[in-house]
């Protein structure tokens, strides 16, 4: 680094007179500040480096001038005059550097504010993505619960649909059974007629028995009692037969009324409608399954994208660390400029006052320059301008 710097100085030394080089360098700085308005980091750094080099020339020339022992009073006066001019120039240079330093600190503050704002926005973005994912996750769980309910409902409604489909056939069977029961009743009605007829004949027989008992006189008294009981029995049988006949007639009427109200007239339409209901329910179930699969896929895709988003956000937050790196580099430049200007002012004040050799200050300047380069090299892995220790990883666990 030192060799590199000395090479630069030698090159400049052989090119231009002392004052001209410094004035040009200062002109570049002033132009950067005035014309660019917001010169930014490169607008500030480039002219600063030029001035550093030109000052190296200045110190070399001045030191050699001071090293020469003035042979006459006019030579000594020339050295003093040169020192006074250089001191005046350095004062202006210090004012300019002060302004540049302030601008650099402003740049630091502005980039820090922008970085902080960016971090907050990125965090809000991350939070929004996280909420979306939580919402989708919750919806997925709810959909799972709904799936179970829908499955149960579909099974229930399907059973009802099947029942409705089978209902006409069952009704047909019931009507057939009712007709058979009607036939049985009709047969019972004929039996009731037979009972009535038997009752009439029994009654007639009892009457004849009573007549014959009366003819027999006292010896037919017991038979007369039996004949009377038989007559009473026949009357009760006749009444029972009438009641059975009437009951059967009512049952027949009820059954015939029931058969008049038939479902069978609309059974074909009912079957078609029932079939449609069952088909509709099955289609609804298939649609729900499809929707649920789509929802699961959607959830998976969103989760994947959200993970990717979180990774990118993490990387972005890492990149923002550059602001801190740049801040430290700018602060190092400003501190080095302040130290350098202090040395320059001291050098030229003493030179103007004494006109003697001031070898210690150029030495301090060299050390300052070396310190700056060494410190800056610590950021070599970031900026690449100065090499850091080769081969060292950016991340190392001990």
């Amino acid at each position: 680094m030192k060799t590199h710097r000395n090479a630069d100085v030698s090159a400049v030394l052989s090119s231009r007179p002392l004052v001209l080089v410094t004035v040009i360098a200062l002109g570049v700085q002033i132009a950067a500040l005035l014309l660019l308005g917001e010169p930014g980091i490169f607008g500030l750094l480039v002219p600063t480096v030029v001035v550093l080099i030109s000052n190296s020339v200045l110190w070399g020339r001045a030191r050699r001038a001071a090293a020469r022992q003035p042979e006459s009073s006019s030579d000594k006066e020339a050295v003093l005059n040169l020192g006074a001019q250089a001191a005046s120039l350095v004062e202006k240079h210090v004012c300019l550097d002060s302004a540049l330093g302030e601008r650099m600190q402003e740049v630091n503050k502005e980039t820090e504010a922008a970085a902080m704002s960016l971090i907050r926005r990125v965090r809000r973005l991350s939070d929004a993505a996280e909420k979306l994912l939580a919402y989708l996750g919750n919806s997925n769980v709810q959909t799972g619960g709904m799936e179970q309910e829908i499955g149960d409902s579909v099974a229930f409604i399907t059973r009802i649909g099947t029942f409705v489909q089978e209902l006409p056939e069952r009704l047909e069977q019931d009507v057939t059974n009712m007709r058979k029961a009607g036939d049985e009743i009709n047969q019972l009605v004929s039996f009731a007629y037979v009972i009535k007829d038997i009752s009439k004949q029994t009654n007639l027989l009892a009457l004849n028995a009573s007549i014959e008992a009366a003819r027999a006189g006292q010896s037919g008294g017991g038979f007369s009692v039996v004949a009377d009981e038989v007559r009473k029995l026949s009357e009760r049988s006749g009444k029972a037969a009438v009641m059975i006949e009437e009951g059967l007639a009512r049952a027949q009427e009820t059954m015939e009324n029931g058969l008049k109200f038939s479902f069978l007239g609309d059974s074909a339409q009912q079957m078609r409608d029932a079939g449609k209901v069952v088909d509709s329910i099955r289609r609804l179930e298939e649609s729900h399954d499809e929707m649920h699969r789509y929802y699961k896929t959607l959830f998976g895709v969103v989760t994947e994208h959200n993970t990717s988003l979180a990774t990118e956000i993490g990387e972005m937050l890492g990149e923002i660390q550059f602001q801190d790196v740049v801040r430290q580099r700018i602060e190092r430049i400003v501190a080095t400029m302040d130290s350098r200007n202090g040395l320059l002012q001291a050098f030229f004040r003493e030179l103007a006052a004494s006109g003697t050799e001031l070898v210690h200050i150029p030495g301090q300047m060299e050390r300052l320059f070396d310190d700056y380069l060494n410190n800056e090299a610590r950021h070599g892995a970031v900026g690449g301008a100065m090499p850091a220790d080769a081969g060292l990883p950016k991340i190392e666990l001990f």
Partner: protein
Amino acid sequence: MTKTILIVDDSATMLLSVRNNLEIAGFKVETAEDGVKALGKLKAGLKPDLVITDINMPNMNGMELIRNIRALPGFRFTPILTLTTESQAAKRDEGKAAGATGWLVKPVGGADLLKIIRQVLPGA
């Protein structure tokens, strides 16, 4: 159980960016602006599972902080990572000797930072 990480840095940008990166990843985060404040929090009872510290800080720099943390009872094995602009071997060696667990040179990407944290915090 949520792991707690203490971040120590004098840069507000660093504190906010690293805090957000770690919070999004599910960590609980505490912060301090320099070594003195960090040490104060630890002495007041904060018991982080990991400390991530800058090196160049006012009041108390990272090297001093690491040495002081290692001297505290109960912090002998607490992992301490440095997150710094210092990339030179001499500084790393100094950090290692002070008791640092690892050396990270800024800037470190979010994924790399989480990867290294999960290496020193198994189960995190």
